[in-house]
């Protein structure tokens, strides 16, 4: 018995030693190669389906045609898997050269890896041309990423459904919206669809009430300090609570996804089963895939989040964000930065807007490619706004953003309180 134990111990020790030795090796997740001035850029993207997949691959191909020394290995990754995969890659020794970036606190959290390239010293001219949009993609002055599109959140509504309920024009104040909700309910129509299963669509409401209740200076300072201690954030929660009392959402909204399937919030609006939803400018492209026909595109309209009477914040401030790319520190430069600059060119941007329906272009020169009247309307709203607040769940560091989403989702489920949202943010910030 004792001898057997000894053998088992020897075998176990050998196994453990081999395991540790195996862990000491390094893996390979892609990366660049440079030989004779030729480089291959590995590009990880969450664009894994057409049309955006085809557009990105086409842009890489055309860039290679004009720059034969730069080749690409395009790696499409499913969106929900992307965040985990990029985290492992950035923590490893061989991250991709170019990779999809969400910006804000998500990017700031990634920057802790020390593997994100500061693009500013490489060529700041094209970045400067993006103006304040690019400035919001900085962490402590370092340009760790650039957006290729920009997003704005507002209400997408069905003009035909509004007309059926006797609503002549979209609301511009919160009391008007609440009156319209009453009219829609009276007409037997679900007023507002919301994808509460995913939590982030719920957070849009709290975000917008915060944007209306807080001054721009407070918004900026609070994001920087990772705090929601200013009383305006508590007021935002109170506003949301009052709004929820109007019961604007259809039954079973708590398990409704935002964008997946005909039963999603986008699907409900596309099908005319709900009158409107608060969503990003990308919503029509989501609806298009879910709607039985494209007819709904002529019925769809957009209006900004209504003003809140008595709220001190600027009512023209918008909530938004964008999608972009980063280069890793191991990427061959200036090849990587030059390609990101190419993605900002008017030619590439027009393709992204007209073919891939990414939303609003990062480069205003491509805005003519927007086809829907509502999109032009959003563009104008963006031109008149003094500030675009990035969605708080992305503006704050990742753990704070998810805590915010979860706390707002609790409130939607009738479990949370305005104070609980503020507390959740502060507690998550303390774990930073």
């Amino acid at each position, binding site marked *: 018995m004792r001898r057997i134990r000894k*053998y088992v111990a020897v075998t176990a020790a*050998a196994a453990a030693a081999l395991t540790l030795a195996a862990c000491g090796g390094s893996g390979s997740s892609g990366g660049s190669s440079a030989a004779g001035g030729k480089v291959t850029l590995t590009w990880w993207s969450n664009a894994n389906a057409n049309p955006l997949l085809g557009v990105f691959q086409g842009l890489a191909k055309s860039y290679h045609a004009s720059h034969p020394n730069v080749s690409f290995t395009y790696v499409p990754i499913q969106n929900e898997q992307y965040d985990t995969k990029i*985290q492992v890659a950035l923590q490893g020794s061989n991250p991709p050269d170019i990779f999809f970036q969400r910006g804000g606190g998500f990017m700031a959290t990634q920057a802790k890896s020390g593997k994100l390239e500061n693009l500013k010293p490489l060529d700041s001219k094209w970045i400067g041309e993006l103006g304040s949009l690019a400035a919001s993609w900085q962490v402590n002055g370092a340009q760790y990423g650039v957006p290729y599109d920009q997003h704005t959140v507002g209400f997408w509504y069905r003009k035909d459904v509004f007309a059926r309920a006797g609503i002549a024009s979209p609301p511009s104040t919160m009391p008007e919206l609440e009156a319209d909700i009453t009219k829609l309910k009276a007409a037997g129509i679900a007023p507002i669809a919301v994808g509460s299963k*995913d939590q982030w669509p719920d957070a849009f409401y709290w975000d917008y009430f915060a944007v209306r209740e807080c001054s721009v200076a407070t918004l900026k300072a609070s994001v920087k300090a990772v705090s929601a201690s200013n009383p305006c954030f508590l007021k935002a929660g109170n506003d949301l609570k009052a709004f929820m009392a109007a019961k604007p959402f259809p039954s079973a909204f*708590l398990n409704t996804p935002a964008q997946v399937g005909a039963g999603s919030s986008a699907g409900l609006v596309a099908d005319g089963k709900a009158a409107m939803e608060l969503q990003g400018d990308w919503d029509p492209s989501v609806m298009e895939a879910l709607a039985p026909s494209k007819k709904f595109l002529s019925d769809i309209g957009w209006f900004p989040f209504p003003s809140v009477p008595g709220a001190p914040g600027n009512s023209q401030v918008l909530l938004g964000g964008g999608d972009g790319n980063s280069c890793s520190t191991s990427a061959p430069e200036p090849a990587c930065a030059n390609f990101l600059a190419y993605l900002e060119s008017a030619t590439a941007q027009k393709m992204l807007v007209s073919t891939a329906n990414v939303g609003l272009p990062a480069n205003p020169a491509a805005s003519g490619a927007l086809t829907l009247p509502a999109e032009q309307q959003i563009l104008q709203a963006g031109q008149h706004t003094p500030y675009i607040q990035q969605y708080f769940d992305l503006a704050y560091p*990742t*753990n704070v953003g998810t805590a915010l989403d979860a706390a707002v989702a*609790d409130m939607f*489920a009738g479990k949370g309180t305005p104070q609980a949202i503020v507390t959740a943010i502060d507690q998550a910030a303390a774990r930073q």
Partner: protein
Amino acid sequence: MTGPQGATAAQARPAAAVAPPAPRTRRRRRPGRQLAELVVLLGPALLLFAGFVLLPICIAAYYGLFNWSGYGSLSDFTGLHNYRLVIDDPVFRESLLHNVIIGVLSLVIQLPISIAVALLLNRKLRGGSFLRTAVFAPYVVSQATTAVLWLLLLEPGGSVDQLMKAVGLGGLVQQWLANPTIVLYTMFAVLTWQFIGFGVILLLAGLQGIPPELRDAAGIDGASAWQTTRRIVLPLLSPTIRIWIFLSMIGSLQVFDLVWIMTLGGPADASSTMVTYMIFFGFHSLEFGYGSAAAVILFIISFVFAFLYQRFALRRDTAGALTRAVR
């Protein structure tokens, strides 16, 4: 051990007759060969066990001591702070409670149904093998497929609602996945649909190991069918039942796939489990230190349960089988 071979060996070597022959034979085997056997037979399994079980557990326990977003080095040592936070978090406690509720409901509902169906299918029935396949089929389907399937069936106004209305139960239609007070029970119903087949097959195997002569003898003695089942079949089936309980409880503590796909643990954590809690903080919220602490706590709970269950409930079943080899 008193067969012809033992007798022959004893006669050939009378000096060794005091010792039983089998242990003597074992003692005579060369140690080198024994070592080689152990390395070849145990080595690969130990290697995998160390690499994919022991090492990750140790690493997770270590990560749990840090405040770590998954990026950069492990520099912010916080000791047992993460562990304390997890234990104090009402959402974690709620998740643990959900696991316990699922476990208790499994015992109270799934086990009797499994036994009843197994007893039924153990009889000679017309189409018995078809029924067995039909009962077992959901278990073969992956949890992801099951989740998507039931997500569609349970949609508001979906097939389940329509079926209930068609049979006059329209008044009982609920928001199966959106109502925080019933979502956990909906999850349990889907889990039951999927796992009942496993219990039935396991118990059927146990039933077929019971000699029919015992039942026949009981019948001759005048025992009714119920008495035979109660006094003969169920006691003889109890080792299988204890194994089922063990597997079911461990499964209840680890429920994840189905819940994650169907509800993401929501609404408002109403269907969260310890594993969805761990995944949420580890991978979704990028709090790898905190998520690791949750993982270690989940491991400890599962381990303690498994240990105690082995020690007190399964001991009588495994005493001969597992302990004799090393004695």
